[in-house]
């Protein structure tokens, strides 16, 4: 199909708002009578609360409410309902909210917080998930067995093991007996902060008369958060209203109730007055959520020619003190630890373990980043030991089109090999290394990833063609910064046949925009895109039928392009605006259509009965190739170039895809080389952006984004997704390049300058 917008470098529809300072974020929401919230947080990692004295806080001028878990004894949790809005009886990490204040000014709220006295009885704490999983470890959630968890996950009451997952396919003993070599390696990946430039923030209003809870926030899945809150507060879905603002960055971090929770607790005690809660950068770094750290053991059997025969994986994931989306991150991540490779015999064991640390949650990649780190480093180790080119080992084991996935879903792998071929070609794979000059040594590394999307999930949309021919597209897909509005508008414009400029996509409001699973799992282009196609086709049909009536012709003879209705023989012509004026100009009216999309029922996700949930309606493939320069005197690793090839299905907006890839590469580089929490007794010591270092303009390598288009058979215009997978291969590509440069294998992240230098100095001469 010929397109006007899809596939084109269409400027972002949100850019004008953003370059002029007009874009409204949750921190910018201001309402009449608005109060300001502040939070008292736990100084201890694990302690019983003996007593809280709020009397002095209540005397601070301007204070309107002081709330603790005693007054608001509710808990929430999207997967396991284990997290109190405000501590109940005990605290489980340094930074846990214990009490909150709402006051006329931020200063008054802060002053009151400092006057709250809490008496704690300290309990032994545990910070290493491997230790927390052992018998005899201090128990963090005594009531684990009683928590509501929807029976999706296997909990282990009486321990710190939040959830466990086991899976096997084939017979690993047989597989290992067929192997010529067996590799056993252990890897570690550290927790990192999302570091959105906009910290978590929300404005919450509860009107007791109508029992209406309204939340202004940039949460990435407003319908899910409304559903979560309605459930725990015994409200109906239509009594909880999420009004989305622009989001100042999320990266998964805004996929949970964070600042919203403090606001909700306070708003119940402010007699209808709205409360604004803005997390400070310190709160953002220490008391929001982080990427799950993980200890990963991989055992892999290989034939001499590099063919994988069997693989075993055992992963311990750190859940932190509360679950957030940890259970799903752990199981989704675990499933893809064997990468995009045929694995006839395999076993998986995943345990998600509570510790006395900041909660872990979704982080761009949803577990894929952690497992790709282990998988791709080990593939490199295998290639090195067997003396086979790392590119060759990958090609030899890649899923071929039609191969079964671990749950017997049939894989469609168009695009996979191309990502590897193009990335390696761009980096100059196999070319002779330049001569080392001085202390600087160069090396190249490569890594491939596989990422699915949570399947099946639903998206709905509603399209209105207004009386003047303008078009409004109602969805609950939040513009989290990744270009959602632009891509959806492009799809709508081409499907209906109207100019892009005539389309408006307002920010979501769960009271009026239809349900969407959320901007998560790289799913929006595919799922909401498909919903828009369905709704768009409906309104297009109605427009042409109406035009047929007015022009007294067969609608089959008519077409709509760029807002112009054209007859096949070009005899009749009218604009959509004229059509709408003729039909509805007098009394008003609109042409409307709805779209509902779910991949459920698609033949593409058929699998072994009972484990279809492991299937993905689309698989995203990506390969990154890195070239680094290691300074053997200082330990500094300079990333010179990263070629990043991504199979996106079809690039609805190629430059939008480039934005995702470039941004992920820098984030991946930053996570890998610079970012690290320094902790003492569970307290994060580097809680400012001066001490928690993220990449700057000076750390920018040459990045070459490469877009591969495999055209998904059921995707909107053939599209899949790109938001998450771009982060996963960066770390192993860099580590593999460091190995190529200096022969040192890093199995633990981050790879800081100090670690590199120490490893170089300890190297046997």
């Amino acid at each position, binding site marked *: 199909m010929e397109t006007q917008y899809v596939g084109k470098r269409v400027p972002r529809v949100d850019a004008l*708002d953003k370059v*002029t*300072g007009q874009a409204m974020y949750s921190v910018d929401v201001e309402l009449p009578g608005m109060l300001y919230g502040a939070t008292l947080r736990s100084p201890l990692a694990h302690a019983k609360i003996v007593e809280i004295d709020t009397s002095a806080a209540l005397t601070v*001028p301007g204070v309107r409410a002081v709330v603790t878990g005693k007054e608001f004894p509710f808990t929430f949790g999207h997967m396991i309902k284990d997290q109190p809005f405000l501590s109940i009886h005990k605290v489980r990490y340094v930074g846990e909210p214990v009490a909150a204040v709402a006051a006329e000014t931020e200063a008054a709220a802060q002053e009151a917080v400092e006057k709250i006295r809490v008496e704690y009885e300290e309990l032994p704490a545990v910070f290493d998930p491997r230790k927390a999983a052992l018998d005899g470890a201090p128990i963090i959630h005594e009531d684990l067995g009683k928590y509501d968890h929807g029976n999706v996950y296997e909990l282990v009451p009486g321990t710190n093991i939040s959830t466990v997952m086991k899976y096997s396919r084939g017979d690993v003993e047989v597989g290992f007996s067929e192997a010529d070599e067996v590799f056993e390696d252990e890897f570690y990946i550290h927790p990192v902060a*999302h570091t959105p430039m906009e910290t978590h923030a929300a404005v919450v209003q509860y009107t007791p008369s109508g029992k209406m809870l309204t939340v202004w926030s940039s949460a990435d899945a407003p319908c899910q958060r409304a559903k979560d809150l309605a459930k725990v507060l015994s409200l109906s879905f239509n009594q909880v209203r999420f009004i989305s603002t622009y989001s100042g960055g999320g990266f998964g971090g805004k996929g949970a109730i964070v600042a919203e929770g403090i606001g909700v607790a306070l708003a119940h005690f402010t007699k209808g007055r709205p409360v604004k809660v803005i997390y400070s*950068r310190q709160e953002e770094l220490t008391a929001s959520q982080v990427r799950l750290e993980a200890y990963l053991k991989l055992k892999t059997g290989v034939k001499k020619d590099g063919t994988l025969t069997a693989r075993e994986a055992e992963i311990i994931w750190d859940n932190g003190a509360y679950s957030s989306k940890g259970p799903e991150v752990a199981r989704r991540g675990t499933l893809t630890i064997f990468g995009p490779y045929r694995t006839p015999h395999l076993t998986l064991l995943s345990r998600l373990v509570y510790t006395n640390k900041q909660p872990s949650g979704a982080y761009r990649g949803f577990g894929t980043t952690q497992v790709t780190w282990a998988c791709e480093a080990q593939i490199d180790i295998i290639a090195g030991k067997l003396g086979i080119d790392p590119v060759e080992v990958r090609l030899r084991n890649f899923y071929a089109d039609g191969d079964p996935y671990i749950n017997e879903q049939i894989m469609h792998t168009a695009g996979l090999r191309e990502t590897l071929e193009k990335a390696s070609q761009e980096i100059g794979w196999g070319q002779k290394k330049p001569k080392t000059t001085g202390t600087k040594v160069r090396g190249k590394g490569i890594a491939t990833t596989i990422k699915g999307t949570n399947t099946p999930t639903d998206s709905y949309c509603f399209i209105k063609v207004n009386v003047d021919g303008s078009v409004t597209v109602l969805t609950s897909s939040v513009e989290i*910064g990744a270009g959602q509005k632009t891509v959806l508008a492009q799809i709508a414009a081409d499907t209906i046949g109207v100019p892009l400029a005539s389309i408006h996509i307002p920010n979501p409001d769960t009271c009026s925009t239809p349900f969407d699973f959320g901007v998560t799992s790289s799913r929006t282009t595919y799922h909401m895109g498909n919903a828009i196609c369905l709704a768009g086709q409906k309104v297009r049909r109605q427009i042409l039928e109406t035009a047929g009536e007015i022009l007294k012709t067969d609608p089959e003879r008519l077409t709509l392009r760029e807002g112009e209705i054209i007859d096949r023989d070009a005899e009749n012509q009218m604009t959509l605006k004229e059509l709408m004026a003729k039909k509805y100009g007098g009394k008003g009216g609109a042409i409307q259509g709805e779209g509902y999309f779910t991949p459920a029922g698609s033949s593409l996700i058929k699998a072994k009965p009972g484990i279809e949930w492991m299937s993905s309606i689309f698989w995203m493939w990506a390969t990154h190739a890195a070239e680094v320069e290691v300074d053997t005197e200082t330990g500094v690793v300079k990333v010179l170039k990263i070629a990043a090839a991504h199979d996106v299905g079809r690039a609805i907006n190629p430059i939008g895809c480039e934005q995702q890839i470039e941004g992920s590469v820098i984030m991946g580089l930053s996570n890998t080389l610079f970012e690290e929490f320094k902790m003492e007794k569970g307290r994060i010591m580097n809680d400012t952006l001066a001490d928690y270092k*993220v990449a700057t303009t000076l750390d*920018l390598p040459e990045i070459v984004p490469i877009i591969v288009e495999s055209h998904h058979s059921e995707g909107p215009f053939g599209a899949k997704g790109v938001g998450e997978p771009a982060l996963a291969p960066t770390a192993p590509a860099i580590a593999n390049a460091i190995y190529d440069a200096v022969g040192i294998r890093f199995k633990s992240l981050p790879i800081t300058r100090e670690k590199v230098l120490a490893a170089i100095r300890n190297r046997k001469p």
Partner: protein
Amino acid sequence: MPGEKGIYMKQRLELKVNGQTYEVLVDPWQSLADVLREELGYTGVKVSCNSGNCGSCTVLLDGKAVKSCIMLAPLAKGKEILTIEGLATESNLHPLQEAFIEHFAVQCGYCTPGMILMAKALLDENPNATEDEIREGLVGNLCRCTGYVKIVEAIMAAKEKMKVTSSR
């Protein structure tokens, strides 16, 4: 909170923002960012770290870039303050704003006002800034979305346009 005890004396302060003069009552400890956002409604000034480490709150003071979150508001007295809201004219966007749109230098947009104003200060001071000089000049402005690639491209493109505009 009229009528309640414990209220500090506010100071009367005259500020010139985007060509307009305002008289505001400020607390002596209030930052310029806070006054611009909360008292005057210039919410294009974005606060992110509140400690001068990220550059989101960058505004121009007599043409020089400052981090308004760590500057006390009274220090801006008598100076011309420029926020992102004052950059475009009635009819035209500034070349930097145009370039940020054309070159896809915007994602979530939260760092964008600070980036654009920092770039303006850099190019006003050094109209022939090289790419390396621009990268160096932006080191105090963090962005988590874009990877900086398209931001640097946009500024390089705007540089040429700004030369043409200023030579007219």
